[in-house]
């Protein structure tokens, strides 16, 4: 039994933590929070690119480092801890994974090296309305090889150079034939509008397409299953970000509760808060363990991935939600002020929990995949 990261991976973690403590201060996070016209921290992005993180899991033949998904998990946890305000998840966990899995040789050559080098930022444009994306509420479509439609929210849409867009394909208006298209945003007919959201440190946009050029990704009509697969892969990485965030939320609650006194003693000595933090700890440990299992399934391309990813996602979403909201509660009055950092975690928690689809949807995924597994 070696259900742990390797020594090399642990070294990477240590370096990453040190690096981000240094380069991704709360001041830097707040520079995006307070002015989300900044959209993301360009300095940090450049530093992260310089560290090679964007190249981590991209094969060497496409300009990457050719490391495994476990290394990416390690980085994800640290990015989650530091609340990094950069479009890493959109470009690396999602866009690059779509390309790696379904891109043609030409598409891979065209995009992956620039994604790895940070020259290009990618993202994914999927939902069009509030509510769960379903076959009947995706109306974007491709006619005569031109895409039209309106997507929102597109996380990191305002900084994305290239997008994967889910749309109805041209040869079939049947809604079961969702297809994926690669679309460059630097062309006429693409209009972006920055949205107000709950987490301005990771902004999102509305993007409208009017007859724009696009190239199909993978098989036409296979969009749903490709999306499901990539969301499963991304879910494990998101889970590590969530686990990272949840751990820091607990750490900060703990620290504050030891330093803060009321009724002549540290508030951390009151059972109500102690037990709350014990509950945070339990949820965090379970989430971490479920995330590890997801990492194993992801890194070994196991058949277990759909179940493992959903389990990791559900557990991590719950842990981060609980830790970030109760961290505010433990801070008391200062907890809900703009000045203290508690809300940064609370905002990020909700963003991450919705970004790949809500916890309800992932619970549903988990059970349907368990049913499938039981049948086979």
């Amino acid at each position, binding site marked *: 039994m070696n259900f742990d990261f390797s020594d090399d991976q642990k070294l990477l973690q240590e370096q990453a933590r040190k690096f981000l403590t240094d380069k991704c201060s709360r001041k830097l996070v707040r520079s995006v929070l307070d002015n989300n016209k900044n959209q993301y921290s360009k300095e940090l992005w450049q530093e992260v690119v310089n560290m090679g993180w964007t190249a981590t899991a991209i094969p060497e033949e496409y300009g990457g480092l050719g490391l495994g998904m476990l290394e990416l998990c390690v980085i994800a946890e640290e990015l989650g801890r530091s609340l990094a305000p950069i479009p890493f998840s959109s470009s690396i966990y999602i866009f690059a994974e779509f390309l790696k899995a379904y891109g043609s040789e030409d598409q891979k050559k065209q995009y992956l090296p620039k994604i790895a080098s940070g020259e290009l930022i990618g993202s994914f444009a999927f939902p069009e309305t509030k509510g769960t994306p379903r076959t009947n509420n995706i109306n974007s479509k491709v006619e005569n090889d031109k895409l039209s439609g309106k997507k929102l929210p597109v996380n990191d849409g305002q900084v994305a150079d290239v997008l994967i867009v889910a749309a109805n394909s041209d040869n079939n208006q049947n809604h079961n034939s969702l297809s994926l298209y690669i679309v460059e945003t630097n062309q006429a007919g693409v209009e972006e509008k920055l949205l107000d959201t709950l*987490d301005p440190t990771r902004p999102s946009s509305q993007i409208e397409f009017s007859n724009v050029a696009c190239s199909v990704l993978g098989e036409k009509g296979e969009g749903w299953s490709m999306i499901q697969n990539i969301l499963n892969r991304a879910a494990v990485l998101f889970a590590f970000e969530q686990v990272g965030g949840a751990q820091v939320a607990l750490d900060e609650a703990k620290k504050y509760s030891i330093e803060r006194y009321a009724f002549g003693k540290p508030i951390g000595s009151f059972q109500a808060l102690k037990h709350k933090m014990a509950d945070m700890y339990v949820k965090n440990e379970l989430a971490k363990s479920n995330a590890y299992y997801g990492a194993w399934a992801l890194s070994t391309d196991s058949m277990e991935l759909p179940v493992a990813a959903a389990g990791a996602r559900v557990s991590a979403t719950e842990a981060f939600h609980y830790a970030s909201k109760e961290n505010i509660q433990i801070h*008391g009055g200062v907890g809900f002020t703009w000045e203290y950092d508690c809300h940064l975690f609370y905002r990020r928690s909700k963003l991450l929990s919705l970004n790949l689809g*809500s916890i309800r949807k992932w619970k549903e995924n988990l059970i349907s995949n368990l049913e499938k597994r039981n049948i086979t």
Partner: protein
Amino acid sequence: MDFNDNEKEAAFRAEVRKFLDKNAKKRTNTSSSSANAAAPETLRGKEAQVKALQDAKNWQAKKAEAGFAGILWPKEFGGFGGTPIEQVIYQQEELNYFVHSGYFEIGIGMLGPTMMVWGKDEDKIKYLPKMLNGEEIWCQLFSEPSAGSDLAGIKMKAEKDGDEWVLNGQKVWTSGAHFADYGMIVARSDPSALKHKGLTYFFLDMKTPGIEVKPIEQISGSSNFNEVFFNDVRIPDTQRLGNEGDGWKVSLTTLMNERLAVGDPAGLDFDEIFEITRDLEVEDGLAINNSEVRQKMADWYVQSRGLKYTKYRSITALSKGQTPGPELSISKLVTASKMQDVSSYALDLMDMGGYVLDEQNAILNNVFQNGLLFSTAMRIAGGTDEVLRNIIAERVLGLPQDTREDKIKPFNELPSGK
């Protein structure tokens, strides 16, 4: 068992309605108003705030003229000399109109009664009428950075200098300090005394030199509260209420009146979430047709209506001249977490788009997105969840207090941390 007023109450209600109909504009839709309540006032912009305050003052003056400004105040101070149930009836009715009395609640509900008990006659004559008619607004300067849940942990220094007191320190979470004309304040006059024994209570003019008010920015974007800094603020000893060292005792008069001053917790509830389940699609169709959604809705319905009927029980007690039951202590405790849970769940139903705040696209005017942020404050301000549970356990259930070393050692020997 019925929901009707008794004869005296019905007469009073008719009188109130007559006054309100004549002088104020009636709301048409109560549900949307409750949804909007979660969007805090200060989001409305500076100019609108100034106008709202002036409107409220005009309204308060009218109420005072008609005798409705202080239902519970004795007639000698311009009050109605009424009963708690009449107070409730007035509030119920006023809620149906586009008027706002929130600015005056702390003054009329808590500080006025404190002045009545502890003030000198000339001060009562000087201050109470203007407090009642809205001409002068009062704020309550109690909480401090180190005195939140532990309210008696006040550090604000009050040092006697001849016939004056010099105040130094900081207050926090002061509602309305930025527009208040006067304030009541508790400060520590003897740090070597026991925690609850070394306090003294004063009132003061908020324009006294050395007072600086700074709004606190909340995560919901609003600033309902202030920090108030005191630098060598000098006030005459004549503005002391109660004896030196009796500040805690005087504070209790203020706090005991809190119950009746505090209104309904604002905000979104079952009706709002039930409404959106009939529009939003989840994985298998309309949310309201999904059995998990339905079970959750049932939970919130039962909580929401349980609170409503608990309130009916309290009103019944008031109507019979009894002390109301536990309504207030359980109401905020349940409501705040419910709001947080409902908000979070509503965003989950909106799925990938749930975090968007854009006005054109968001549902019910962003009530759930705002609620997610606002509810964090609600679980803390005015007594944290934990304090409320302690109050229920100790005061309602009679469970023993924990050992309290801070009650037996001099204040300046207590460890105090951050």
